[in-house]
C-alpha cells in the first residue's frame, strides 16, 4: 500500500481500504493479545516473539499507509521493545506482558477513535510508558537497533539467493530460518564464527548467512541469521546448531512457500493455529463481506419464506375451488420445488452467518487474567469447544453477558487462595467456558469450581430488599430461589466495571439472553461451584414451530422445546395448592392455560378432553393446554420491538402465508412463570 494521499483514489476506494484496515487491525490486535498472554510460561518464546513482532510490523506499515502516523510510531516503538526482549537486553517477565497488553489497548483505542472519526487519543502517553519501561529495566534504550537486527533475512535476498531458494524448494528440501545467539561467554566471536562456518555443511545447504561469517561485522552482533535448505527435521537442525562455547541459543522456523513464516512448533498447537489464522487472512478463496449485506440476504430469505407460504395457501384454496383442475399437480410440484430450493438457500445463508464462538471466547484469557489480578485470586481459564459455530447475531452480543457471568464467578464464586487451601481445594480456581451443540440448540456453559450459591442467603437478601413478601418466599423451593439473582435490583455490585465499562446486573444478562430467544439456567452445589447454562436456538432468524390456538389467538412454540403432545381428560387434571397439575407417568407437572394467563378469552373450557403440549427448558417440564393444534411450520421471526406486547412470554412474531400474525412464545419464560415465582418485578 502506498501513501493514500499520493494516489488518485475515489472517496469510495479510500473508504473501503480504510474499512479493510480497521477490520484487519482489530483481528491483528486480538491475535496480539492472545500471543502475549501465551508468552507467560511458554517454552517457545522465540517464535511467539516473532509472531508478535510480525503483527506490529504489519500494523506499522498499514497504519502509516492509512495516514495514522501516531499509531505507526507507536507500533515502531513496540517493535523496538520486542527487539530488546529478543536480544535479551530486557528480561521476559510479567512486566513485558503487561506493557504489551497496554500497547494493545492503546492501539485498539486509537483505531476505534480513528474509525469513529474522533481525535486519536494520546498515543504519546503510551510511548512515554514504553520509554519508562526501558529505563526501568536499565537497558539504556537504543532507539535504533537496526544494526543489531537487520532486515529479516528472507526479505533481503539477492536474485541469485532467490534462485537458490527456489531450486532447493524444487528439490523438496525444508527451508529454515535460524537465528543463532552467541553464547554470553563467547569472547571471541569471529573465532566462533569460523567454527560455525565449519559446522554449517552438516546442517544442509546454506543459502544465506547474515552477517557473513568471515566479516568483521561478526564481532559487533549478538546474532547470526541463517537461511538454510535441509532435508533434516527442524529439531535435528536446531540440535546441530548448538555449539557449546559459541552458541547460546537457537531459534529456528520453517519458511513456507507463500513467503509468510509459518511457525512450526509441536508443543504449542494454539500458537500455530493463531499464526495460521493470520496467514489465512490473505489467501484467495476468502472474501470479506460486510455483515450487513449477509443480514440483508437473510431478511430476503425470510421474506421469500413468507412468500412461499402465500403460494401454498393459494394452492390449497385453488384445490378447493377447482378440485378437478389438471394444473393443480403441476402447481403443487412447482411449489414443492420452490420449497426445497428455499430451504437449501436458507441453510447456505445460515452457514455464512455462522462463526466459531472462538471470536467471543478469545477475549476471555485477558478478561480472566485481569479480573483475577484485580481481585487477588489465582484463576485458570479452561476453554472447550471454541470451534463450535454459532450465529453471528449471537457472537455479536453474547460477549458482554458472558463477561458479566465470568466476573461474578471470579468475584463471588472463586474463593481466595487461603480459603481454597483451608477447604482442601487446589490453590488455583478454575473458570471453564464451554460451547457445544445439543439438538437444535447451542449451549454455552460457564463453570467455576468456587463456593457455589447459597439459596438461603439469596432468600434473606431478597426479603431484606423487599423484592418479595415472606409468605410468597415460603412457597419457593431452593432451586427456584437461585433465580433470584436475575431479579432487577438484586445485584448490589452496581460498580462501574473496568472490564465491561458499565455496571450491569444479572437481570441485564437475562434480558440479553432472552432477547436472543435463549434461556439461562443455573446449577450450583455448595462448596463445589456453579454452572451457568446458556441455551440458544441454532439460528436466530428462522425456526420450526408448532402452531396452535389458545382462545382465539394464534400462537407458536419452537419445536425444539416441545417434548411431546398428548391428549388428556379434563377430569384427570388435579389441583395441588390451588394450581392445576397433570400426572405424567412418574412426574407431576404444572398445567398452564394460556387463554387465561394471557386474557385471550376462554373458548373450550367445557370440553372433556384437551390437547396438552409438554414443553421443557432442559430443566423443568410444563404442560400447555391448547384448543386446537394447527400443525408445524417454518417461521421467520420478526422481533417485536414495540412493547405493546407487555409480556416477556412472547419472544417474537411471524407472518403466515395467509397474512395472519402468529406470536411465538418464549418457553423458558412461561416455564419460570408457571413454576410459581410470583414476584412483582418478574
Amino acid at each position, binding site marked *: 500500500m502506498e501513501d493514500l494521499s499520493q494516489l488518485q483514489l475515489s472517496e469510495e476506494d479510500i473508504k473501503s481500504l480504510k474499512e479493510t484496515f480497521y477490520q484487519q487491525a482489530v483481528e491483528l490486535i486480538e491475535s496480539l493479545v492472545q500471543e502475549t498472554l501465551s508468552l507467560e510460561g511458554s517454552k517457545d518464546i522465540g517464535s511467539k516473539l516473532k509472531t508478535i513482532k510480525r503483527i506490529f510490523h504489519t500494523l506499522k506499515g498499514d497504519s502509516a499507509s492509512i495516514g495514522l502516523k501516531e499509531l505507526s510510531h507507536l507500533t515502531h516503538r513496540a517493535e523496538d521493545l520486542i527487539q530488546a526482549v529478543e536480544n535479551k537486553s530486557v528480561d521476559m517477565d510479567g512486566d513485558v506482558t503487561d506493557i504489551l497488553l497496554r500497547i494493545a489497548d492503546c492501539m485498539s483505542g486509537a483505531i476505534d477513535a480513528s474509525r469513529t472519526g474522533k481525535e486519536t487519543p494520546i498515543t504519546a502517553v503510551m510511548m512515554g510508558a514504553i520509554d519508562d519501561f526501558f529505563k526501568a529495566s536499565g537497558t539504556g534504550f537504543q532507539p535504533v537497533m537496526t544494526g543489531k537486527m537487520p532486515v529479516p533475512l528472507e526479505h533481503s535476498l539477492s536474485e541469485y539467493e532467490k534462485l537458490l531458494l527456489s531450486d532447493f524448494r524444487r528439490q523438496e528440501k525444508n527451508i529454515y530460518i535460524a537465528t543463532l545467539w552467541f553464547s554470553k*561467554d563467547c*569472547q571471541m566471536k*569471529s*573465532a566462533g564464527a*569460523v*567454527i560455525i562456518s*565449519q559446522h554449517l555443511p552438516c546442517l544442509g545447504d546454506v543459502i544465506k548467512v547474515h552477517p557473513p561469517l568471515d566479516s568483521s561485522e561478526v564481532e559487533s552482533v549478538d546474532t547470526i541469521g541463517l537461511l538454510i535448505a535441509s532435508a533434516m527435521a527442524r529439531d535435528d537442525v536446531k540440535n546441530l546448531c548448538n555449539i*557449546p*562455547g559459541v552458541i547460546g541459543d537457537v531459534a529456528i522456523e520453517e519458511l513456507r512457500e507463500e513467503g509468510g513464516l509459518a511457525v512450526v512448533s509441536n508443543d504449542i498447537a494454539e500458537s500455530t493455529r493463531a499464526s495460521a489464522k493470520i496467514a489465512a487472512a490473505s489467501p484467495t478463496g476468502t472474501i470479506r463481506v460486510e455483515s450487513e449485506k449477509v443480514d440483508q440476504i437473510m431478511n430476503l430469505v425470510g421474506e421469500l419464506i413468507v412468500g412461499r407460504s402465500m403460494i401454498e395457501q393459494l394452492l390449497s384454496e385453488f384445490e378447493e375451488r377447482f378440485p378437478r383442475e389438471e394444473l393443480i399437480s403441476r402447481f403443487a410440484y412447482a411449489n414443492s420445488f420452490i420449497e426445497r430450493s428455499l430451504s437449501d438457500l436458507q441453510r447456505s445463508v445460515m452457514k455464512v452467518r455462522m462463526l466459531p464462538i472462538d471470536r467471543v471466547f478469545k477475549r476471555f484469557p485477558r478478561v480472566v487474567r485481569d479480573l483475577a489480578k484485580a481481585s487477588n485470586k489465582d484463576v485458570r481459564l479452561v476453554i472447550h469447544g471454541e470451534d463450535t459455530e454459532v450465529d453471528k447475531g449471537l457472537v455479536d452480543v453474547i460477549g458482554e453477558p458472558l463477561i458479566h457471568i465470568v466476573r461474578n464467578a471470579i468475584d463471588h464464586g472463586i474463593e481466595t487462595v487461603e480459603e481454597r487451601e483451608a477447604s482442601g481445594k487446589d490453590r488455583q480456581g478454575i473458570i471453564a467456558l464451554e460451547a457445544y451443540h445439543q439438538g437444535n440448540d447451542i449451549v454455552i456453559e460457564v463453570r467455576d469450581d468456587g463456593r457455589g450459591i447459597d439459596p438461603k442467603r439469596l432468600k434473606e437478601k431478597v426479603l431484606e430488599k423487599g423484592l418479595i413478601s415472606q409468605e410468597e418466599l415460603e412457597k419457593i423451593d431452593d432451586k427456584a430461589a437461585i433465580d433470584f439473582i436475575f431479579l432487577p435490583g438484586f445485584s448490589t455490585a452496581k460498580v462501574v466495571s473496568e472490564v465491561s465499562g458499565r455496571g450491569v446486573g444479572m437481570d441485564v444478562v437475562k434480558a440479553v439472553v432472552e432477547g436472543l430467544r435463549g434461556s439461562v439456567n443455573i446449577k450450583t452445589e455448595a462448596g463445589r461451584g456453579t454452572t451457568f447454562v446458556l441455551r440458544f436456538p441454532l439460528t436466530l432468524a428462522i425456526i420450526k414451530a408448532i402452531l396452535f390456538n389458545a382462545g382465539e389467538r394464534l400462537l407458536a412454540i419452537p419445536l425444539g422445546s416441545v417434548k411431546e403432545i398428548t391428549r388428556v381428560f379434563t377430569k384427570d387434571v388435579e389441583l395441588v395448592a390451588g394450581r392445576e397439575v397433570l400426572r405424567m407417568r412418574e412426574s407431576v407437572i404444572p398445567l398452564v392455560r394460556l387463554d387465561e394467563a394471557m386474557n385471550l378469552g376462554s373458548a373450550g373450557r367445557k370440553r372433556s378432553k384437551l390437547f396438552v403440549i409438554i414443553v421443557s427448558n432442559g430443566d423443568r417440564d410444563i404442560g400447555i393446554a391448547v384448543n386446537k393444534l394447527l400443525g408445524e411450520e417454518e417461521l421467520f421471526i420478526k422481533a417485536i420491538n414495540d412493547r405493546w406486547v407487555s409480556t416477556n412470554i412472547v419472544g417474537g412474531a411471524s407472518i403466515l402465508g395467509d397474512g395472519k400474525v402468529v406470536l411465538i412464545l418464549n418457553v423458558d419464560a412461561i416455564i419460570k412463570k408457571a413454576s410459581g415465582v410470583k414476584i412483582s418485578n418478574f
Partner: protein
Amino acid sequence: MEMRNKEETAVSPYRFLIVDDSVFARKNMSKVVEMIGAVVVGEATTGKEGIEQYFKLKPDLVIMDVSMPEMEGLEAMAKIKERDNDARVIIVSSMGYQELVKKALILGAKHFISKPFDPAKAAEIIQFVLKEIKTVNSEQ
C-alpha cells in the same frame, strides 16, 4: 592413526595430551579432563615438547595453548597435522589472540576454549568435540 573400535571406546577412557607453559593452566585443565571421565596421558610445556609427546603417546585429543615459548601452539599444531592429519586439537587462548585462534581453526583445530574458562563450560566443549570423534569413528 590407529582407530579405536567401538568396544574399546566403551571401556577405555579417552586419552588427552595437555600442552601449556603454565602449571596452573595444565592443572586446571587436567581437572576438567578428569571431570568428564577421561585421562591425561601426558603434559608438555612447549610446542616442541608437545610434538614429541604427541607422536610418542598418540592421544585422542590435544589441548594446546596458543602462546608458548620455544614454539607457538599454532606452529606445533601445524607440525603435528603435517604428519598426522587426523590429529584432534582444541586450542586454548586468552583474550587478544583471536586472530591466532582463527588461524588455528582454519588449519584444522576442532574448537577453542578461551581463558579464563568456567570448568563446566570447558567440559561441555570437550565433550562436544569427543562426540564428533565418536560419530566419525562409528561411521568408519
